[in-house]
């Protein structure tokens, strides 16, 4: 540890301005601060500071994602062997899934972090930890059979046009991970929709349709049981099938206070109420689908827990959070039931509300401003 510190201190001058590796300064800085919390002390204002920093915040989200990630790996293996009609053990399944996901994770982190470091170097910033989470989110919301070159392009697009053009993490309008998925969805629809992509090396005879895929074409009799959908034994994107394991992540996020309960709760509430409203209307079979089915199908739970709660792209005022979450839930179900082209509405609902979040905040803050003006008028009159 001490030797490592000394090594870093010895190498540091080479990475400073004028040093032989000055172009790698941001990379060095990222590695150094990863290994050691810097020795910076307070200079202005409060002399003591909270132990939490961006790295701590992001590692909590990262940990919250792990249960769903490991289940996803198991599920990839399980479905693969199931489709092939072979029996397998727990570890076989996980190992198969791990091998499937490893290249996806490597491409996601490699491309994303590479771009982050380049931008940090150009801007003379420290490398932001935001992609630490985004880099894991993206592999979890794509199918196991996603072509890696497509993934690389999508990640690059999301990082550059979703984040860096606005000034980096904290300044972006829409969620970069969802933007990557939206990019894949519209640029290469064949590889991210349909019945063939959700099970790795699927045997042709086996139906690989997701619950949402079945619902879209009206095959409600093919829907898996509520238990299977809740547990996640269904085809779908890598990490988003198991509502149970996503909820374990939600508990971690809420217990640590990193995730926002207002948004999480209202997304589920909005979706459920929309489901109930459709039940009342009952025009077709999809509308008659019990409201709780919507919560456990597709990416609804994953979006509610990990995507809608992204603090940068969500609303930032308390009142705004209720409105934002509720509308995401409602719009997601609305798109599912009414749009014949897209089986899933969660991604589009969140991206849409990301764009409207600043507007919602604007009106909430306007209310605060008006209250202040009113007080002034009552004083002066």
């Amino acid at each position, binding site marked *: 540890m001490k030797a490592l510190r000394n090594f870093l201190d010895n190498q540091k001058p080479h990475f400073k301005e004028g040093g032989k590796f000055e172009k790698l300064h941001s990379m060095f800085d990222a590695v150094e601060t990863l290994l050691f919390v810097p020795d910076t*002390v307070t200079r202005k204002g409060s002399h003591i500071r909270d132990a939490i920093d961006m790295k701590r915040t992001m590692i909590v989200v990262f940990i919250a994602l792990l249960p769903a990630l490991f289940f996803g790996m198991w599920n990839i293996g399980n479905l693969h062997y199931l489709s092939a009609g072979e029996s397998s053990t727990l570890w076989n399944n996980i190992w198969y899934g791990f091998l499937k996901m490893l290249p996806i994770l490597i491409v996601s982190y490699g491309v994303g972090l590479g771009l982050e470091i380049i931008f940090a170097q150009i801007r003379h910033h420290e490398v932001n930890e935001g992609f630490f989470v985004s880099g894991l989110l993206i592999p979890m919301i794509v199918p196991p059979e996603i072509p890696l070159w497509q993934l690389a392009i999508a990640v690059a697009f999301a990082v550059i046009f979703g984040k860096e053009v606005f000034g980096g993490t904290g300044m972006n309008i829409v969620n970069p991970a969802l933007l990557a998925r939206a990019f894949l969805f519209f640029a290469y629809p064949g590889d991210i929709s349909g019945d063939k992509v959700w099970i790795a090396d699927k045997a042709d005879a086996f139906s690989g349709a997701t619950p949402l895929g079945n619902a879209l074409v009206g095959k409600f009799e093919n829907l898996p049981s509520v238990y299977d959908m809740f547990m996640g034994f269904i085809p779908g994107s890598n990490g988003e099938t198991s509502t149970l394991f996503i909820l374990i992540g939600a508990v971690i996020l809420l217990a640590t206070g990193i995730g926002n309960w207002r948004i999480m709760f209202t997304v589920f509430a909005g979706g459920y109420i929309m489901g109930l409203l459709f039940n009342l209307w009952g025009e077709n079979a999809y509308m008659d689908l019990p409201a709780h089915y919507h919560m456990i199908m597709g990416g609804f739970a994953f979006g509610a827990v990990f995507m809608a709660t992204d603090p940068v792209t969500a609303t930032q005022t308390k009142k705004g959070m209720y409105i934002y979450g509720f509308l995401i839930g409602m719009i997601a179900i609305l798109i599912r039931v009414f749009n014949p082209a897209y089986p899933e509405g969660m991604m589009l609902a969140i991206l849409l509300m990301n764009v409207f979040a600043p507007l919602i905040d604007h009106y909430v*803050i306007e209310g605060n401003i008006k209250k202040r003006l009113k007080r002034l008028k009552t004083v002066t009159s």
Partner: protein
Amino acid sequence: MSTAYKIKKGLDIKLLGEAEKTIVDLNAKRFAIKPPDFIGCFPKMLVEEGDLVKTGTPLFYDKYRKEIKFTSPVSGKVMEIVRGAKRRLLQVIIESDGKDEAVDFGKTDISSVDRDTIIEKMLTSGVWPMIRQRPYSIVADPKVAPKAIFVSAFNTAPLAADFDLVVHGKGTEFQAGLDILAKLTTGKVYLNIDAKNTTSKVFLNSKNVQINQFSGPHPASNVSVHASRLDPINKGEVIWYAGPQEVVSIGKLFLEGKLDSERVIAFAGSEVLHPKYFKTNMGARIVNMASGNVTGGTNRFISGNVLTGDQIEKDGFVGFYDSLVTVIPEGDYHEFFGWIKPGLNKFSFSKTFLSQFFPNKKYRLDTNLHGGKRAYVMTGKLEKVFPFDIYPLQLIKAIIVEDIDLMEQLGIYEIDDEDFALCEVIDTSKTNMQQIVRKGLDLMRQEMS
């Protein structure tokens, strides 16, 4: 007779090294008045090094408000006039002759004295700067009649001095000071006490004021918090405020005709061996408090509390308005994988460290920033330690982009940089919020004058 207000949002940071309630004579030889303590003041010197001064002799005045004079807290000789970069005046150091000869400003009958005489007397004696105004926290403008005056009889900041102890036995002077303040405002004088911990008769028996009880975590004792509940500051309105020791000084000026610069200062913090109170005068040199009484490591000496105080040297001087000197360890070390540790001994408002399960634990906290500066990512956290109907992050952003109108609309007049101290502590992005808010307030002051 008194109304109770419960402050829900906030945070008490529990630190080791609270001052024991005994008062010792400091016997300081040197004292200093530090112009940077007075926000927006452009000092013009009236004395030179070597001049002999009495207690109450003017040392300098404010270039833009010539009537406001700053006087010597003790009698003796002007030792040194310390200037910094661009010849900025930093300290005027006086060496005490121990005689305590004071300029006689004459006794006054408090019941019959009029407002103009009061102000005149306070200005010439140098007592005036003890009253500050909101917005901006500058020395009060004698030409303005404030809509209310606030006196906070308690302090919820970490390790803060116990004002009950500090004013002990000074009931007559304190009441005289309150009577004077009552003549300066068109509205009320609010004396705000701690609902639980204020027990001193000096405060509880005060007359000619409205007594209000406050309870809850820090910043429950901040003037802005009191004003927000009792009499919110609108655009164009001004309130004044002063601390209990300052009120005693005001009272003494009229009762005895002399500048009273006596102060009781708490010396506290995890690095102090015997934390206790010292009796001395304003601006005392802390060397006698610290010598042989602090631990050996690299320490930070702070005049004031750890949230809002100013860093001083180990032989520096107590600030004009401060009643506390805190000593904590410096945090200039690298911590191996510090951000991933379970954190049993780490203080955090967030619930991401194991220490959250020990809410009553007292900490030895150092000055490490615990991370790097980032853009604002987390939301909804600052509001939990910010007990105002104001959006803190939005206001901060309005200040950063220097949008004067928006700052005003979002309520910048109602707050001060000290109100953002807790936000700054818990900020995941490690920005200097108090500095940003001060910049915003300075900008407003320039625009409005």
